[in-house]
């Protein structure tokens, strides 16, 4: 095919599709891509919030500032991001598949009702749930969680100040995240289980396999493709912690629970350090890009449900 006709075909194809995607392309370019590019530029500038400020170019100074911070906030945030993935993804995944399989058991009635309840946290607002969790995890015996674990059950030697110590704050953030999002996995797996052929289980029954063996040797391998999808999405979600941290601890105590998005937000909007904040944003973008590059087209082709 000659270059010219290939161009002509391409042009015709674009003309055919443009009516459908033009608005989406323009909108994304203006409100998503342009801000991102703008932020990359800001990361090399001494940025002032004034509309007509000169914003001198400063090279990599903002990046240097991020790494030279005497309290290592960026590294702490990075470490927490990985901890969040390690702590929440396996639990989230396991609970999702477990509950889905249990609810899907033949004899269980009111399947839809259970699914509705499990999914309820997903459709409620982050802000409200965060307020609620802060309230449930309030310090002293006046907080419900302390009241149950310490006063009623005696599982804790003393009431915990959840948000004022590093590990307890992290645990609270994880519980908040898992509680809020596990319903998504349950719904996905419940839908996926509809497609699992029943005869495999019948064969296993004849072999005398018990419930645990059936779960580990049939259900889990069969659902492997869907599990990959679920896990990728869970990892992605755990990477993107923002409301989980911002609404619960604001990064405290002592900026110990910050993750990169919440750190970016506080640096920019509390301390007016837009340059370093943009630098962190750009670095996080590159990192996420590298980590997900190989999976990217796969994620793109996946169906969300």
């Amino acid at each position, binding site marked *: 095919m000659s270059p010219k006709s290939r161009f002509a075909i391409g042009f015709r194809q674009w003309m055919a599709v443009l009516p459908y995607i033009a608005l989406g392309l323009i909108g994304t370019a203006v409100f998503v891509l342009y801000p991102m590019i703008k932020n990359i530029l800001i990361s090399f500038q001494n940025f002032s919030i*004034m*509309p007509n400020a000169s914003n001198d170019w400063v090279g990599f100074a903002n990046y240097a500032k991020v790494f030279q911070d005497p309290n290592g906030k960026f590294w702490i945030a990075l470490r927490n991001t990985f901890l969040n993935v390690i702590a929440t993804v396996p639990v989230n995944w396991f609970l999702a598949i477990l509950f889905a399989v249990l609810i899907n058991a033949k004899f269980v009635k009111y399947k839809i009702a259970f699914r509705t309840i499990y999914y309820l946290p997903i459709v409620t607002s982050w802000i409200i749930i965060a307020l609620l969790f802060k309230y449930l995890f*309030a*310090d*002293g015996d006046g907080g419900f969680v302390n009241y149950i674990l310490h006063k009623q059950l005696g599982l804790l030697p003393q009431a915990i100040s959840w948000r004022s110590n590093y590990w307890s704050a992290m645990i609270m953030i994880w519980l908040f995240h898992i509680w809020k999002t596990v319903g998504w996995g349950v719904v996905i797996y419940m839908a996926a289980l509809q497609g699992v052929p029943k005869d495999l289980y019948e064969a296993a029954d004849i072999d005398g396999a018990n419930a645990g063996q059936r779960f580990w040797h049939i259900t889990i391998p069969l659902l492997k493709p869907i599990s990959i999808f679920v896990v990728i999405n869970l990892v992605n979600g755990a990477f993107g912690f923002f409301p989980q941290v911002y609404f619960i601890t604001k990064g405290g105590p002592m900026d110990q629970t910050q993750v990169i998005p919440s750190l970016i937000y506080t640096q920019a*909007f509390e301390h007016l350090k837009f340059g370093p904040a943009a630098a962190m944003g750009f670095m996080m973008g590159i990192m996420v890009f590298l980590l997900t590059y190989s999976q990217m087209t796969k994620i793109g082709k996946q169906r969300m449900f």
Partner: protein
Amino acid sequence: MGSMRKVFGGVMAAALAASLAACGSGNGNGGGDAAASPSAGATDSGGSGAETPKDRVKLEYWHTYSDQEEKVLTEKIKPAFEKAYPNIELQLTRMPYEGLKQQVIAGVAGDAAPDLMRMDIVWVPEFASQGALAKLSDLEGFDEVKANVFDGPLATNFYDGAYYGVPVNTNTKVAIYNKKTLEEAGLTEAPKTMDELVKAAETLKSKGKFGLGVSGVNAWGLAPWFWSLGGKITNDDYTKSDGFLNSPESVKALETLVSWNAKGLIIPTMLGGEPGVWDGLKSGDYLMTDDGPWFYSILMNEKDAKFDPMAETVRGLMPAGAGGSRSVIGGEDLVVFANSKHPKEAWTFAQWMMTEEPQKIMAEVGLIPSNKAAAEAMKQMDIPFVGEFVQQLETALPRTPIPQWGEMEGIFNLSFEKAIRGEKKPKEALDEAAKQIDALLK
């Protein structure tokens, strides 16, 4: 009081010299336009009455007044001002406290900031350094305003040789005691010294109650204690921290705080625990805390409350330690944004708001005037709790009024928290903080 005078004396002298110098160099901000416009002082109110409502200028004013305060603002302040200046209309917008700074930043960056705002005193130098605020000290009538207000609150508006706001109201914290618990500790009146207070706290310790009400590990919560115990954050010109924040006196002050906490004398709220300060104080589990006048104005206005703050608490000055009785200055400043479309009218309102009458109106809901005459008048008003606050203001100190304060406070809080949690020796923590702060001050 003596040393306070000296601090502000120095600042004022520097301010005067610098603002004189700045006059020549024309800063190009909205302030310049306003300075060029004819006088809009409180004196010419009669002349503007003739204008038709069509020409009325709308001033957008952001604030974070509380429920009761907002009521007074809309029902008394607004009508009074619009009567005096019929050509100006106030458009009042109450902002949520959450995310406030982000909104101001976005407003400034997008050229959509209001004309005026009542903002926390610690923000003013930071926004001034960004060029977001109009320079008020060049404007006509500023000297008059300056002469009528207290130096301490005014100093919070100072940045780089000029003033970028006027102190619309001021406040400070005093020691508030639960009466019953105070009696339980064997006292009949508020302790005058730290030693007395600590003794009371030790008595209460055996009863499972807490005596020392440090409300949080941040400058607002810690500073009154740290200063009263003899600590200092920087030198008097706010240019150096090394040798001050880590001086032997400061280290001693922090060590004292650390040892109190180790002995379990300080309320758990300091490190984020429960019950909250007000809850603990109401129930009598906490002997005392230091808090502002809103403790009374909010609790007294609560419907069907079982707790009567006037009858069940006792107020006193911060107990004196090696540094005397020190508290921290809080409050809000009224600023005009550099991009205001009506800088002249905005300044007119700011000037008017600083005069005695409006200051007295806001004093009715417990906001302490920074206008001297209004503050004097407030003592005669029938506001039962206000006396101690006005008295404490005489020795209260501002948090370092410089643009770097936001970052400085982060360092300050972190070093104190590390020491109090036992992660660092007080001396080490303060040495490190002083070094970091000096890097910012350069």
